[in-house]
């Protein structure tokens, strides 16, 4: 690390003449990256595609929903730039802003497949899903992740995290899917923000007032020094433009080199981590190195074997249902917290409680580092073994995840990157023709659901008060949006995406079946037969339906409740080519 990288300029005179990138608003950021005069904004302020969910909550909307989409050239090459305005709603992903990004990526993908490689540049400045649009924001992030992966096959997808908000929440999974990531020392990238971890797990887990600690874990320099970002540049518009232009000029990325495809590296890196005696952030740089490759000196930690851990699993809905489908002898513990079962119908995967999990923040069924890697390896294994088969095996994600793991260790290791690996493999399986069915039997919250479930072609859920699908659990959402839980319940009556009721969730357009069973805690034989039959039907629908996520936009529910998403997609498509 040289001082050249820390500040924009060697002398104070240079420092004064530099043009800060961080201080620019979203549109100026776009303009500073693009070739002069080449920027054409799509669905700009005068298109007035606002969030339909904010005014009813008494929140002033922004005319472009805080996201600028522009076509432009960079170094003469066609690109699309999506810039999130950090000052509006903390850069939170809503229905409209999310749909703008995913549709821009899909249009770039379309052009790229038709012979005009169109790279995408995403300027991440976001605290994650906009909680006022909860479930629609969460789904929007899943659609963005899918679109990043669709495009990445045929063009570069370059992420820029400059600061000051940084990238947090599910959008960091999308950052982890990018083929190239540019950061500044002011940037932060993490799955869970420090304040959220502190509120979930206490200040001893993560002291959100300790800025040195935050940057030692999430900071741009640390992410770069541990190979989780590719280019580190100072907060200087020229330096950032050059870094982006270089990444655009590099052309179509080699998929096998993309971080989210490197399960070997993820596995090797996690194998060197002892959660009981974790390295300090500074030591992690030496342990893992600055390139995303298998560490040179492997000091693998001895772990308990599956048979030792299998006995420790406490009952949970995920565990109960996977055993109900397969019978005890056919359920394998891939890790203490991940179960796999193979039946004539499908391969089932579930994340379950694991009281002995060495990662203490992932003991209650949360999706953490081990769970992300284990799921990714399992799905990858299915895709590999079915490669020659004409009909691909179905994969059922049995979902009962209270959340992602909120922990300091998880953030230091880059949970967002581990989750990106899982999302990438689920997407790869779906794209290869494996029907993916998510079956929500318990809670399906936030990053946990994004990782395990939301890349499915078909989503089924039990119709039961114990089933909860949301961007954040109620107590935390109340705290963050400065409301009481009672106020949230009241709002949910009119703002459907904020509702915690599964019946309301089912109206949003991405539910492919709400299943009423007699006993969701201890399913009867009739319950199991009924749900298994619903899964078989969902698999059949997946086989004949689209292999992307477009069914979530074209369903009867979406036509009613996702009008804004559909409007954005139509308007962007119209403006993409014609320019009016």
């Amino acid at each position, binding site marked *: 690390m040289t001082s050249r990288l820390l500040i924009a300029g060697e002398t104070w005179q240079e420092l004064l003449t530099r043009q800060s990138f961080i201080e620019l*608003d979203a549109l100026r950021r776009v303009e500073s990256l693009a070739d002069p005069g080449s920027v054409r904004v799509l669905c*700009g*302020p*005068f298109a*007035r595609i606002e969030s339909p969910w904010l*005014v009813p909550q*008494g*929140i*002033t*909307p*922004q*005319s472009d929903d*805080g996201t600028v989409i522009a076509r432009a050239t960079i170094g003469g090459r066609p690109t699309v730039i999506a810039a999130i*305005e950090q*000052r*509006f*709603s903390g850069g939170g992903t809503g229905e409209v802003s999310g749909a703008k990004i995913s549709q821009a990526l899909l249009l770039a993908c379309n052009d790229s497949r038709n012979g005009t490689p169109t790279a995408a540049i995403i300027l991440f400045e976001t605290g994650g899903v906009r909680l006022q649009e909860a479930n629609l924001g969460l789904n929007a992030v899943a659609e963005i992740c899918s679109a990043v992966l669709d495009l990445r096959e045929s063009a570069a997808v370059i992420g820029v995290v400059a600061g000051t908000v940084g990238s947090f929440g599910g959008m960091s999974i999308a950052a982890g899917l990018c083929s190239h990531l540019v950061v500044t020392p002011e940037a932060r990238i993490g799955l869970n923000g420090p304040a959220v971890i502190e509120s979930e797990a206490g200040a001893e887990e993560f002291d959100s007032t300790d800025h040195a600690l935050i940057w030692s874990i999430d900071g741009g320099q640390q992410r770069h020094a541990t190979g989780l970002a590719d280019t580190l540049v100072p907060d200087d518009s020229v330096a950032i433009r050059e870094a982006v232009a270089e990444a655009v000029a590099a052309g179509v990325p080699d998929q096998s080199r993309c971080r989210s495809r490197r399960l070997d590296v993820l596995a090797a890196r996690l194998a060197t981590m002892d959660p009981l005696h974790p390295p300090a952030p500074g030591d992690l740089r030496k342990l893992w190195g600055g390139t995303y490759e298998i560490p040179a000196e492997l000091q693998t930690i001895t772990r308990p074997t599956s048979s030792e851990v299998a006995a420790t699993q406490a009952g949970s809905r995920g565990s109960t249902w996977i055993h109900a489908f397969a019978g005890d002898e056919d359920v394998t513990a891939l890790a203490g917290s991940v179960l796999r079962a193979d039946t004539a119908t499908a391969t089932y995967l579930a994340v379950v409680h694991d009281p002995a999990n060495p990662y203490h923040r992932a003991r209650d069924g949360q999706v953490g580092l081990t769970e992300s890697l284990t799921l990714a390896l399992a799905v990858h294994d299915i895709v590999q073994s079915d490669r020659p088969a004409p009909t691909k095996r179905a994969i059922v994600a049995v979902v009962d995840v209270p959340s992602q793991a909120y922990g300091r260790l998880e953030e230091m290791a880059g949970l967002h990157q581990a989750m990106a690996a899982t999302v990438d493999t689920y997407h790869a399986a779906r794209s290869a023709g494996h029907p993916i069915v998510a079956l929500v039997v318990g809670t399906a919250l936030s990053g946990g659901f994004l990782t395990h479930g939301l890349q499915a072609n078909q989503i089924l859920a039990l119709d039961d008060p114990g089933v909860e699908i949301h961007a954040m659990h109620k107590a935390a959402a109340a705290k963050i949006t400065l409301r009481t839980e009672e106020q949230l319940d009241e709002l949910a009556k009119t703002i459907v995406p904020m509702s915690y009721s599964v019946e309301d969730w089912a109206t949003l357009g991405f539910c492919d079946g709400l299943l009423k069973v007699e006993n969701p805690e201890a399913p009867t034989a009739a319950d199991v037969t009924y749900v298994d039959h619903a899964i078989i039907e969902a698999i059949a629908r997946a086989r004949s339906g689209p292999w992307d996520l477009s069914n979530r936009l074209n369903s009867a529910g979406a036509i009613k409740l996702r009008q804004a998403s559909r409007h954005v997609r139509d308007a962007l498509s119209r403006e993409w080519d014609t320019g009016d």
Partner: protein
Amino acid sequence: MQTLTYEFPAQKVISRQVHVGVVGSGDLEILLEPPSADQPTNSAVVRVRTSVDGFDSLWREVLRRFFVADALAGSWELNDFGATPGVVTLRLRQAAEAAAGGTA
């Protein structure tokens, strides 16, 4: 959130759309458009959506003073997130300058 509407006499007709600002804390965005075919060319129609309720008369006064100096006809939409009167006036001036041909 409160929606307020005002109308002020105006003479100058601008020829292009202008967008300035952001709905960020202590700030606002302004969308300014020339009068459409069915709108009068001698008035400024202003719609304010503000996150802070109860300041109708202050908004009226801030806007009135601005339109005395810069009587730009057309449709003005202000989306406000708690901007102070000083910031509001600066953004209005910025929009007027941009409409006159400067950079937005």
